[in-house]
């Protein structure tokens, strides 16, 4: 993992420097115009969040049932990264919606469920921080509930009538529905997912150092 760190940093830096140029070169959408370009980092931020949710849910389950401390470090790191990228999506979305829909927010099923999912992961972090002894297990259980809501949030636009675009927008774009926009989107998505991976790696390191500190405190108290 440590050997991967430096190449990952360079890759993410290159992608994030190249992304604005590529996004600027991408064609304008016919009805939304310039504001549609928020799409190139709004959707990737959700993709990065779903990656973090997958890591958080699996690690939380491993920690809950096997009591594995490393899994706990991954769970807390992924929960924080989930909240970070969810916040990016929840802020960039209304900025796009203000121009495209004429309102900042709609209590539409996709927006509402996405907000609730973000709140579940914030709750998971709050329980962990302020829940007292044993709160790690409670936080892991909360994260499992957060992970269970993710598929519903993703498919909500296909199941219910909403103002939000359907999930088919991205596959159609990659198939060439808007020539010239597939590559900037793909590179931006890869950049965001790699950034999430990088942040999780750094945060796992911090969690492991905190665990080492806690163990040292216990040893010191006992001696």
């Amino acid at each position: 993992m440590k050997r991967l760190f430096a190449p990952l940093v360079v890759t993410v830096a290159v992608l994030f420097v190249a992304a604005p140029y590529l996004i600027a070169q991408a064609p304008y959408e016919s009805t939304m115009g310039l504001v549609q370009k928020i799409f190139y980092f709004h959707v990737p931020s959700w993709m990065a969040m779903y990656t973090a949710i997958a890591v958080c849910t699996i690690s939380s389950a491993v920690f809950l049932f096997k009591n594995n401390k490393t899994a706990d470090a991954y769970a807390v790191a992924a929960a924080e990264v989930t909240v970070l990228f969810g916040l990016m999506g929840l802020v960039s979305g209304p900025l796009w919606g203000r121009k495209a829909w004429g309102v900042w927010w709609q209590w539409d099923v996709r927006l509402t469920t996405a907000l609730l999912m973000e709140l579940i992961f914030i709750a998971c972090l709050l329980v962990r921080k302020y829940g007292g002894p044993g709160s790690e297990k409670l936080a892991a259980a909360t994260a499992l509930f957060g992970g269970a809501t993710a598929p519903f949030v993703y498919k909500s636009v296909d199941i219910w009538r909403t103002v939000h675009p359907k999930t088919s927008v991205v596959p159609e774009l990659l198939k060439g529905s808007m020539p010239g926009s597939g590559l900037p989107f793909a590179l931006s998505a890869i950049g965001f997912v790699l950034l999430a991976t990088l942040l999780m790696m750094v945060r796992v390191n911090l969690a492991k150092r905190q665990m080492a500190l806690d163990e040292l405190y216990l040893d010191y108290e006992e001696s």
Partner: protein
Amino acid sequence: MTRILLLIGSLLLAAPAFALQPPAAQSEFVPAAPGASTEQLPAAPLLIAAYAFVWVAAMGYVWTIGRRLTKVEDDLRSLERKAGKASR
């Protein structure tokens, strides 16, 4: 006289129904005057704000991790020193 009063009465009763009618539908588009501002909400500030928020949030998070890591490392060092003194 009765007929006139009935006519006035029925007109008064019908008044709310007329008042509640929706405005007439637009039958044609009217072009904007040359040079008139048609764009009410510029897109660029929204786009820049969204992009800036993503950057600030990511950098802010990296900064908090750095700060927390420095604190943990300091605590580890001071505890190791204390433990070393206690064992002597």
